[in-house]
C-alpha cells in the first residue's frame, strides 16, 4: 500500500491564494514595506536611466537642463560618488524591508499556530506547511513588487517631467524602464521569500500539540 500523504502543487497554490484573500489586511501590512522599498528601488533605477540617457545623448539642451538642476555633468568622479552613495541607501532600504517582513511574518505565523497544528493532525507534513508559507510569500512578493515597480516608474517619470520637461525623453528607452522594473520585481519576490523563510521554518517544525497548546 502506498503510505504517502500528498498535497498537489495546484491545491497548495489554491490554499495559499485563499489564505491571502481571507487575510487581506494582514497580508497588506506585511507587504507594505516591500511595496515601498521596491518603489524606491525602481524610482532610483529609472531616474538614473533617464539622467544617463540625457547625458549620453550629447544633446546640449538636455545638458543645460541637467546643469540647471544641479548635476555636475563634467565630473566623472562625482557621478561615481553619487552612484556609490545611492547603492548604499538602496541596500539599507532593502535590509530594513527584510527585517520588516521577518517581523510581520513572525507575528502572522504566531497567529496561525493553531491552524498549523490542526493541519498536522489532519496529516500535513512539515514541508506542506513550509510550502504554503513560501507560496503565500511568493505571491505577496510578486504582487507587492509589481505595485511597487509601477509606482516607482510612475513617480520617476513624473519627477523627471517636472524637472526636465519633455527633454527627459532624449536618450530614454522604455525597454530600460521595463528592465529596471523587472529587476525590482525579482528582487522584491526574493526579499519576500527570504523574509518568510525563518518564520515558516519555525512554524513547519512545530509538533502538533505544541502548536495547539498556545493560547491567543
Amino acid at each position, binding site marked *: 500500500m*502506498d*503510505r*504517502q*500523504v*500528498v*498535497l*498537489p502543487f495546484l*491545491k497548495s497554490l489554491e490554499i495559499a491564494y*485563499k*489564505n491571502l484573500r*481571507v*487575510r487581506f489586511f494582514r497580508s497588506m501590512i506585511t507587504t507594505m514595506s516591500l511595496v515601498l522599498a521596491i518603489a524606491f528601488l525602481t524610482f532610483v533605477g529609472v531616474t538614473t536611466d533617464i539622467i544617463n540617457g540625457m547625458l549620453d545623448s550629447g544633446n546640449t539642451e538636455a545638458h543645460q537642463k541637467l546643469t540647471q538642476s544641479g548635476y555636475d555633468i563634467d565630473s566623472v568622479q562625482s557621478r561615481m560618488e553619487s552612484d556609490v552613495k545611492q547603492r548604499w541607501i538602496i541596500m539599507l532600504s532593502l535590509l530594513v524591508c527584510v527585517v520588516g517582513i521577518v517581523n510581520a511574518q513572525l507575528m502572522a505565523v504566531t497567529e496561525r499556530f*493553531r*491552524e498549523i*497544528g*490542526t*493541519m*498536522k*493532525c*489532519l*496529516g*500535513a*507534513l*512539515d514541508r*506542506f506547511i513550509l510550502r504554503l508559507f513560501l507560496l503565500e510569500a511568493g505571491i505577496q512578493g510578486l504582487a507587492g513588487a509589481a505595485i511597487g515597480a509601477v509606482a516607482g516608474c510612475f513617480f520617476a517619470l513624473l519627477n523627471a517631467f517636472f524637472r526636465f520637461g519633455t527633454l527627459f525623453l532624449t536618450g530614454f528607452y522604455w525597454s530600460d524602464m521595463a528592465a529596471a522594473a523587472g529587476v525590482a520585481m525579482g528582487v522584491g519576490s526574493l526579499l519576500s521569500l527570504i523574509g518568510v523563510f525563518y518564520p515558516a521554518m519555525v512554524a513547519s517544525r512545530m*509538533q*502538533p*500539540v505544541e502548536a*495547539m497548546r498556545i493560547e491567543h
Partner: protein
Amino acid sequence: MTEPGNIVRVSKLTKNFKMGKMDVEVLKGIDLEIVKGQYISIMGPSGSGKSTLFNMIGGLDKPTSGKVYIDEVDISQLDAYELAWLRCRKIGYIFQTFNIIQVMTALENVTLPMVFAGMNNDDAVQKGIELLDVVGLGDRFQHKPFELSGGQQQRVAVARALANDPAIILADEPTGNLDLTTGEEIIKLLKRLSLERGVTIISATHDFKMLNVSDQVVWIRDGRVDKIEDRNELSISVGQIDDRG
C-alpha cells in the same frame, strides 16, 4: 501474545513534563487495551492526564517510556511520513475547542484530509457534502466557521474526523465547550457513527452524559488507570454519580 481485535494497545506508558528543572510525572504507567468498534470513555478529574494520554494515543506527542500500538503497530517506530499517514488515514481527531480552520469553509475543512490522502478534488467534494449531510449540516457547507454555532462547528469537526474513514476517532472533551442539549446531540452523533460505521471512539471527558453510550469507561486518577468498567457494571456507579451530582 495479544488478543486479536485490539485496535489500540497501550503498554507501560509514562510521560514526564519538564517544569524548569523538575520532572513532573503526568502518566505513571498506563496499560490499556481497546477493542475495535467500541465506544470508550476516559474519565477522570481535571489534571489527571486524560489529554496527555489522548495525545500519546493519537501520535501527537511522544511518550517518555512505554509503547502505543495502533493495529499492533508500534507508533514510536514510524517515521515522519508514516506518522502523517496514520494521522491522516487511521485516526480522526475531535477537540474541545473544535479547531476548525477558520479561513476555510465547512466543506474545505472536511475535504482537506481527503486531499492529503490523495483523493481527487471532485470525489473529495462529493464525499465532503455527504459527510456534512451525515452530521446534519447538509445545507451549510459553504459557511465559514465564524458563521456557525459552537455545536455546528463541532459537527464540522466530526465530519472532518470521518473524512478518510478512520478506524479510530479520538475526541478530547468534545462536549466541553457546548451547552447541555448541543453536547447531548454530539454524543448521540458519535454513538450513531460508532454503531453504523464500526468506528472505535475514544473520548476523554468530564461529561457524565457520555456514560450512557459508552461500552467501556476507563477511570484515570493521578496518571494511573483507576478502574475499567464495562457497560453492565456501569449502572451502579452511574447511580452514585447521579446521587452526587
